[in-house]
């Protein structure tokens, strides 16, 4: 029975539908984990909320935009400095956090006046910034505030500013995935088409679903420059608000993270006829395949081959050095969703590793179709994994390294198993050729660190060394 009920889930047998172990000869028409469904009461989920998906993942990346979080200050603080996406705008988006700081009296009497006051206060404090996103949160959604009306009133008073409202309180969906969806759909319907970009190249793309984690977008930007491709909108790594309003003029949507931003690529195809080309931006073979596809689309194959040759000459010897030393090491990937399918084959092909377990916090069944098609037989595939399940899976597959977030990372560190930050990276960027060498180095350092053996010593007995 490939769907697996773990021992720790005996009292919540519904979890069986979320855990799959792949066997030879099976495909996803036979078994596919239930996903993007409500967390089962009684499990200790690792998921983020819907608001977090809109703000922390997508909107908060924009480098020239005030992120006004309409709610208690905790919603702002918890989605502020927990993700490392730099920019070339002096990291404006990482330095500040904005909140309307809603209190009990605002819940009783309404918080729209407070929101308006906060908007003016923020624009006045930062006179060079003319763009803002307002996010509702659980409390301000429940009291029935109308932030769109407030935003319209402000824009009437100050025509030089533009405000986008994301109405996606934390409770709006089962995970942060809902926030991705709400922001994507609202942006395409309300903002795309409002700005006409200056076209400077015969080759124009939107690069969709990359958030410049530790500089991923900077690496990719080098490639686009060498290929003579103009990126009208990088949705949203190192991007400006207005760049993302000009997405409708691109010739091609190149999609990396189909989970967080496939929606806007689909809508751009529907509304403007811009085709969607999905690629993987992590890994040597995948990056080359993606670049070659873009080269074929624009008819610039020679430039692409020159770029690949240059990058491989520079980085292939390094990845091969790590591959020799990482061969056969076992890896678990417990992240959001897409990185399971982006990475499982890439680390096998380029680093010689074996992926033995994967867990997704917010992936949909589409993501499980992809990862099961690409992943190993015998590997464990989990939707919305919880703490006890992680502990049990460790006893089943014994990974040498785990890619996950800091919350689960702290758990596994206590078991003296190395963890690498699979969301915000340890020492990234990880995309492209250079990035995958960084990722291999972090894995190598994690696995070979002497700290794990030292951490297991009982220093309460005997002499301290």
């Amino acid at each position, binding site marked *: 029975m490939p769907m697996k009920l773990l021992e720790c889930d005996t009292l919540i047998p519904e979890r069986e539908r979320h855990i799959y172990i792949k066997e030879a000869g099976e*495909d*996803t*028409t036979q*078994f*596919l984990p239930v996903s*993007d469904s409500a967390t089962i009461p009684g499990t200790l989920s690792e998921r983020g909320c819907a608001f977090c998906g809109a703000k922390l993942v997508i909107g908060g990346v924009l480098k020239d935009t005030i992120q006004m979080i309409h709610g208690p200050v905790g919603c702002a603080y918890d989605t502020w400095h927990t993700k490392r996406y730099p920019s070339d705008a002096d990291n404006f988006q990482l330095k500040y956090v904005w909140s309307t700081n809603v209190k009990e009296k605002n819940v009783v009497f309404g918080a729209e006046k407070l929101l308006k006051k906060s908007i003016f206060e923020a624009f006045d404090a930062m006179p060079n910034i003319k763009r803002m996103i307002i996010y509702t949160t659980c409390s301000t959604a429940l009291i029935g505030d109308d932030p769109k009306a407030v935003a319209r009133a402000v824009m009437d008073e100050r025509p030089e500013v533009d405000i986008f409202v994301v109405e996606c309180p934390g409770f709006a969906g089962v995970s942060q995935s809902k926030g991705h969806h709400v922001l994507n*759909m609202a942006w395409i319907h309300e903002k795309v088409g409002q700005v006409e970009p200056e076209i400077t190249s015969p080759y124009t793309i939107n690069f969709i679903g990359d958030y410049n984690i530790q500089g991923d977008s900077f690496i990719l930007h080098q490639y686009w420059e060498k290929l003579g491709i103009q990126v009208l909108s990088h949705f949203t790594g190192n991007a400006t608000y207005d760049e993302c309003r000009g997405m409708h003029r691109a*010739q*091609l949507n190149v999609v990396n993270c*189909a989970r967080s931003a*496939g*929606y806007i690529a*689909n*809508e751009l195809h*529907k509304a403007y*006829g*811009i*085709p*969607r*080309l*999905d*690629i*993987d931006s992590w890994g040597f073979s995948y990056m080359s*395949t993606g670049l*070659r*596809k*873009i080269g*074929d*689309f624009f008819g610039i194959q020679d430039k692409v081959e020159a770029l690949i040759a240059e990058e491989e000459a520079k980085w292939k010897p390094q990845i091969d050095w790590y591959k020799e030393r990482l061969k056969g090491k076992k890896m678990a990937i417990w992240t959001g969703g897409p990185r399971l399918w982006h990475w499982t*084959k890439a680390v096998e092909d380029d680093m010689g590793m074996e992926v033995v377990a994967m867990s997704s916090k917010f992936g*949909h*069944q*589409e993501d499980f*179709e*992809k990862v099961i*098609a*690409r992943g190993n037989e015998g590997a464990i595939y989990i939707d919305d994994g919880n703490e006890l399940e992680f502990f049990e899976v460790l006893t089943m597959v014994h990974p040498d390294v785990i890619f996950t977030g800091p919350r689960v990372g702290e758990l596994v560190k206590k078991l003296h198993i190395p963890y690498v930050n699979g969301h915000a990276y340890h020492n990234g960027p990880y995309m492209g050729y250079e990035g995958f060498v960084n990722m291999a180095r972090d894995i190598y350092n994690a696995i070979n660190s002497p700290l794990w053996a030292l951490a297991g010593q009982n220093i309460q007995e005997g002499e301290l060394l």
Partner: protein
Amino acid sequence: MSQTDDMVTFIQEHCLWQFHSRAWDRESNINGILPMAFQILTGETPKQETPDERCYFANANRLAAEMKDDLPWLEGLRKEELADVIDRVKDKIEDIAVKHSLNGELNQPGY
């Protein structure tokens, strides 16, 4: 493993276009890309007049090139034999990714 299964496994592992969000996107991609891959493998140049056709071509050209590297038996096939294999592969991929997919979102009317 049969030639059809071999190619299906290759496509399942390598191609993201079969897993786009909705049934109609997947069908368009399968029907757009696999016939072009056949044309490329048999030395023809597919039509690339619309943006969608250029995108299908980008995927098909890579698929054809990578299959040539990884599926050496392709070289020994006559055109009619290859046409049969591609037809069977297309049916099988449609079965897995569309018709018999357990993905509950495939037929939702919107994105």
